[in-house]
Each structure stands twice: as structure tokens, then as C-alpha cells.
């Protein structure tokens, strides 16, 4: 009887201790390879590191995983309903951080991080500044990045050697190299390898890459007159969309390269398809989102791909500026969270040095946000210091504002990507861009930018 009473008392004490913990719920995708140091390789465990954090901070962390699309919908629903179910949410720097940041749905992080209380988990000065800039909207930092990437070329050295092709450094040289590959494949009767793999599916996906082409050709983010990138600038200068103007050259180049040198189904390809094709040895060049190439190289069972792949800096356009492809897997704290201070602590834990190192150790991708992790033994041993330096240089040369930071960004990204998919299929760049121009002008007018 006494034993039972003791057990009951202990259970009550444990329950009381748990009850005092603050519950923080995180929602994200990439189950399994994100945060293996916290949630294990299945994403369903609590590692000793996480348990220690929970005990130290008196926080109970729960993570909800899902497919990216489903996660985004849940986040949106939670934010607009103000339910406050989630305390740390997936954002991403290609629309969500801008839309939610401008709308006041997110908690600015600057104040929490300035106190120095979170230095044991994250120090902003340790990060590549580009990843902070990418998550700063209207002067406020709204998101911290987990794995993230800059542009580059992943290519097959054996195929380049076979046809005597030099690694391109400009868009013109890139076209020449791809043409040489195409001619070489035709001469050798190779029909199952494509010179190039990129993504051209309808929706926001290709926009991340193709607007990088626009930037390299125009020399600035050529969406609005004068290259303005913020709502205030657009309003004050009454800058109109220029999708049939300076935007055209980069868009056309992306479409033409896809049509001429890409696989037949490229107009529906997402990052998964481009990665798979390269991984299977069915493509000679993957660009500009090099992360998908690294994912292919580290997961392939094709020895030719594994042993004969290399990274090269992305080519520059006629303007002298490099093609962009820059994205951050960022997370933020909703303004509706009831436990913001604790949520920021969890956010710091998720995006800090140790988490980033664990990601690098697990994936071996040089797609990290912190220089010390980029130059860590794991990545240097795997890729060599030269390649690591090139990856770092690609991040440092990135301009996160290669597209405008406006609340309507997600809608524009979707329309631009869909226009590209349409143009790749039809070959009619003019009509795709005319349609885009008409839509964009109407959209910005109804949004009140030109009053």
C-alpha cells in the first residue's frame, strides 16, 4: 500500500512539473532530415539534447510535420483565425515572410535577440548576413533560417571532358556549352541524357530561378520601373510593372534554355524532378539551385554521377551580375502566439549553430547558414575547401532582394512561374508576358498602389 502511495505521489509530482512547462508547438516540413539532433532521424523522437533544453528552459516542445503545401495552408489558417495553435511556424523567403510580415501576423525578433539571452543558442553575427536580410521586412527581422542556399552549377565532369567543354562563366558560354553537349549526344546516339535540367512547373517554383535570370540580364530586379522593390518605393514613384520591358530578356533566356536543352517534360518539373534526373545520370548540368544537385549527388546510386560531379560558380548575365537562386527555409513566431518569449527560444534552438551543424553532419550538403558550419570538418572533408569556398562566395554574392518585397509576392511568384511553364510549352514568350503584364498592372492598380 505504501509503495502504491509513493508511486502515486511521484506521478503527481511529475505531472505537476510537466504542467508548469510551457507548451511550444512547431510546424514544419522535411521530416527526417530536418533537426535530427532534436527529433531523431524519424522526426518523432525527443533526443537527449532536446530533453536537456526542455528541462533547462521549462518548455515542452512539440513538432507537427506535414507536406510543404499542407503546412503552408495550416499556417495560413492559424494566422488568419488567430487561433494561436502554433508558436513557431514555417515561413520561407519567397512570399510567406513578406506577406505575413507586412500584414502584422509575425512577431519581430530583433528585440528578443538583442538582449543576448539567446546567445547560447544563436548569435546573429555568426550568420551569413544575406540570410538575415532575406527575412527582414520593413526593417524588422521576422524569420531565422535553417538550411538555405545560394546559386551554382552542378555538372558532370566526365561529360564535359568527353566533349572538351570548358566550364561556362557567362550566359553566352553556358548556351555554347549546352549546345556542345546536345551536339555531342546526338553524334554519339545518346538519347537518354539531357544537356540541362531545371524546374519549369506551374506555380511559384520556377520563379525563384527564372527571376534570377531576369536579374542577371537586366542587372537589377526588373519587375517594376526603376527596379524598385518595396511597396513604399512603388507607391512613391508610381512604378508600373515592366514584364514586357526589361524583364523579358532573362525570362526568354530561361524559357529558351529549357526548351532547347531541357528534358521534354520540363514544363511540369519541380525540384524533385530535376534532382531525380540528375541523380539518375539523365542530365549533364543542373542549375541554378545547386542544393538540388547536392541532394542528387549525396543520394544517388549511380557511380558515374557520384564520382564525376562538380560545383561551379553560377554564370553572369550580360549585365555582369550573376544569376540568382536564393532561398531560406525560415521559421518565425506568430504574433498570435501566447508564449512568444519561449517560442523565440525554441526558434533560436532550431536555427542555431548546433542544429545547423547536425544538419550538415546528416546531409553533407553545403547549404548552411553559418560560416563556421560551412567550413566544418564534415563539409570540408566531403567537398574540399575549394568547393566550400565557392559555395560561400555564391551566398555572399547573392542579393536577397533580386525580386521585390511586396505583400503580393506569393501571387506574383505563382503567376510568373505559371507564365514560364506556359511559354516553355508553347514557345510563345510574347503572349505569356503580355498576359502577365496586363494582369500585373490590374493587380497593382486594384491594390491601390497608383492612387
Amino acid at each position: 500500500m505504501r509503495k502504491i502511495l509513493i508511486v502515486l505521489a511521484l506521478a503527481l509530482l511529475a505531472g505537476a512539473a510537466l504542467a508548469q512547462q510551457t507548451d511550444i508547438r512547431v510546424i514544419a516540413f522535411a521530416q527526417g532530415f530536418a533537426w535530427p539532433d532534436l527529433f531523431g532521424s524519424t522526426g518523432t523522437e525527443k533526443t537527449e539534447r532536446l530533453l536537456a533544453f526542455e528541462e533547462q528552459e521549462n518548455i515542452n516542445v512539440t513538432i507537427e510535420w506535414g507536406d510543404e503545401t499542407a503546412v503552408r495552408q495550416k499556417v495560413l489558417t492559424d494566422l488568419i483565425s488567430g487561433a494561436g495553435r502554433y508558436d513557431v511556424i514555417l515561413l520561407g523567403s519567397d512570399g510567406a515572410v513578406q506577406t505575413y510580415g507586412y500584414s502584422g501576423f509575425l512577431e519581430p525578433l530583433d528585440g528578443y535577440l538583442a538582449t543576448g539571452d539567446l546567445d547560447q543558442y544563436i548569435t546573429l553575427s555568426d550568420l551569413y548576413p544575406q540570410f538575415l536580410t532575406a527575412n527582414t521586412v520593413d526593417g524588422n527581422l521576422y524569420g531565422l533560417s535553417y538550411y538555405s542556399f545560394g546559386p551554382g552549377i552542378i555538372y558532370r565532369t566526365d561529360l564535359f571532358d568527353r566533349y572538351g567543354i570548358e566550364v561556362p562563366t557567362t550566359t553566352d558560354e553556358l548556351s555554347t556549352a549546352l549546345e556542345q553537349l546536345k551536339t555531342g549526344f546526338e553524334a554519339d546516339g545518346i538519347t537518354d541524357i539531357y544537356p540541362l535540367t531545371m524546374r519549369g512547373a506551374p506555380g511559384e517554383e520556377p520563379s525563384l530561378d527564372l527571376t534570377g535570370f531576369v536579374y542577371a540580364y537586366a542587372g537589377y530586379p526588373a519587375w517594376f520601373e526603376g527596379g524598385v522593390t518595396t511597396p513604399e518605393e512603388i507607391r512613391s514613384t508610381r512604378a508600373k510593372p515592366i514584364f514586357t520591358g526589361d524583364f523579358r530578356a532573362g525570362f526568354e533566356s530561361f524559357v529558351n534554355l529549357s526548351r532547347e536543352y531541357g528534358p521534354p517534360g520540363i514544363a511540369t518539373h519541380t525540384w524533385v524532378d530535376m534532382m531525380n534526373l540528375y541523380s539518375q545520370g539523365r542530365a549533364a548540368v543542373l542549375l541554378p539551385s545547386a542544393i538540388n544537385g547536392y541532394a542528387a549527388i549525396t543520394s544517388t546510386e549511380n557511380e558515374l554521377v557520384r564520382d564525376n560531379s562538380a560545383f561551379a560558380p553560377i554564370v553572369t548575365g550580360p549585365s555582369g551580375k550573376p544569376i540568382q537562386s536564393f532561398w531560406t527555409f525560415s521559421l518565425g513566431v506568430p504574433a498570435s502566439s501566447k508564449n512568444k518569449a519561449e517560442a523565440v527560444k525554441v526558434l533560436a534552438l532550431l536555427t542555431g549553430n548546433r542544429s545547423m551543424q547536425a544538419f550538415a553532419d546528416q546531409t553533407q550538403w553545403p547549404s548552411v547558414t553559418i560560416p563556421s558550419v560551412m567550413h566544418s570538418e564534415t563539409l570540408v572533408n566531403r567537398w574540399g575547401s575549394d568547393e566550400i569556398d565557392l559555395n560561400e562566395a555564391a551566398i555572399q554574392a547573392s542579393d536577397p532582394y533580386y525580386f521585390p518585397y511586396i505583400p503580393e509576392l506569393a501571387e506574383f511568384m505563382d503567376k510568373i512561374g505559371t507564365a514560364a511553364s506556359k511559354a516553355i510549352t508553347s514557345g510563345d514568350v510574347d503572349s505569356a508576358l503580355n498576359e502577365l503584364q496586363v494582369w500585373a498592372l490590374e493587380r497593382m492598380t486594384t491594390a491601390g498602389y497608383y492612387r
Partner: protein
Amino acid sequence: MAYHPSKRHPIRRLARFPIGFLLPAVLVLAAIVLFPTLYLLWLSVRHWIVFQPQQYFTGLGNFIALFRSSAFWESLRVTGSYLLLTSLLSFAFGLGLAISLSKAIFARGVVRALIILPLLVPPVVAGFAWKFLLNREIGLVGGYLFPALGITVSLLAHPTLALVSIVIADIWSKTSFMFLILLAALQSIPVELYEAARIDGAGARQEFLYITLPLLVPAIIIGLIFRAIDAINTFDLIFVMTQGGPGTATQTLSIFGWKTAFTYFDLGRGAAIAVVMMVLAVITTLFLTKRLQR
């Protein structure tokens, strides 16, 4: 012996007021059907864009904006094509299969089970399977079989053939539903009618035209109503296979509505698209029901 409750029994008293019996079901229905529908209607007349602080009543503003948008008309056209093709073709195949398998043939039970099998496969899984089969680069059909036959085009990246591909996947997935309904109806037709017709000298064609088809009409209409509603609402299969692409070649109203609400953050206009889909489903159902009543 039958149970006859006394006049004072609560059941007898309730029977005089049918609303007493209906009320629980009506309340449950109101909660799970009526409220969301009314909320959707309310949302469709509101200006509600997530990143704009002002929400206000806009009357028919969302609908007017929709009707002025070329993307809406294009989506409506794609939805109409998809609705017609999938409904009619699954009906034609379903009817053919039902007639063939209503006769005594070898291994009829096994063949029937095989035909019903696709109905058990979730549309998302069916979509992935067809996407991989038809993929031009690695697909068994699109990447190897078709090229061997001289067909080198990428089906899913072609503006017309992408829709055809989705229709094929839909028919594979849903024909068994039409088959089941028509088979059940066929088996309920009395054999005496056929025997009498044969005595009167009717051939197989006349039996089909004057006995089978007229008696199948109610089942056909019911089957078509279900298929039409399903086709108007289909999202998963298309999203998985093409995401509405290439470009907007397979963007139906359901994909357009989803994008408008969840990618463009325009909840009012997204709701308006849902209302248009609802009206479209009601009109189609009414049209088919009228045929049933004739």
C-alpha cells in the same frame, strides 16, 4: 405479435409532431452542412485579402472581378471539358463493361473484382501512379512504350495531351463506380421482358434500345449526377499529376480556387469560386434530374 403503443405513449404523441423526430437530424445537418455553406456565402461577398487590414462587404464585387478575369473563364472551360469527357467516357466504358459482365462468362467474378479494384485506390495514389507511368523521362508508358512506338511528345507537358492524360487517369479510377451502378441496374431488369421480346422477334439491338436502355435511364442519370459532381470537385488527381499545368492547361476551378485562397491569400474571391462551383454542380444536377423525371 405487433407492438401497439397506447395513445398516451410518448412515441404516439411524438408521431403527431414529426418535427420531434426530425429535429435532432436537422440540427446536426444544420451544424455540419448549413453553417459552413452560409459561411461560404458570407465570405464570398466580403473583401478579405489576408495582407490587407480592411475587411468589408463588397456585394457582388468578388463575382464581378471573377467574371472579368480571363483565368476564371479558362478554368471554367477546362472544368467543362473535364466534366464532359470524364462523365461521358466513364459512362460509356462503365456501360460496356456492365453489359459484358452481366452475361455468364469465364471467371466473371474475378474480372468484376479486378474492375472494381481502382475504386479502392485513393485518387492521390492513382495520380502519382499515372504521373510516373506517363512521365516522358522515366515512365514505363511515356518514357519507354510510347517512344518505342514513335510518340516522343511529353504527355504531361503538352497543353492538350496533359488534360487527356488526366482524363485517362480519372476514367481508370472512376469507371468502376459507374460500372457498379449500371451492373446493379442491369441485373434488376426482369428476364421475362427479354424472353417476351424474343418471342415477338426482337433482335439484340432492339432489346438493347427498347428494353435495356430505357430501364437503365434512372441508374444512368444517378450515376452521371455523382460523376458530374465528382468531376467538378476533383482536385487531388489534377494537383498531383500536373498542378494545373503546363501553364494553366489543366487548371480547373478547384485548382484555381485553391490557388486564389491559399497562394494569393484572397479568401473572398476564393470563396466566390467555390460558390460558382456549387452553382455549377446544382445546375448540372437539376438538368440531369429533369431528364430523370421525363
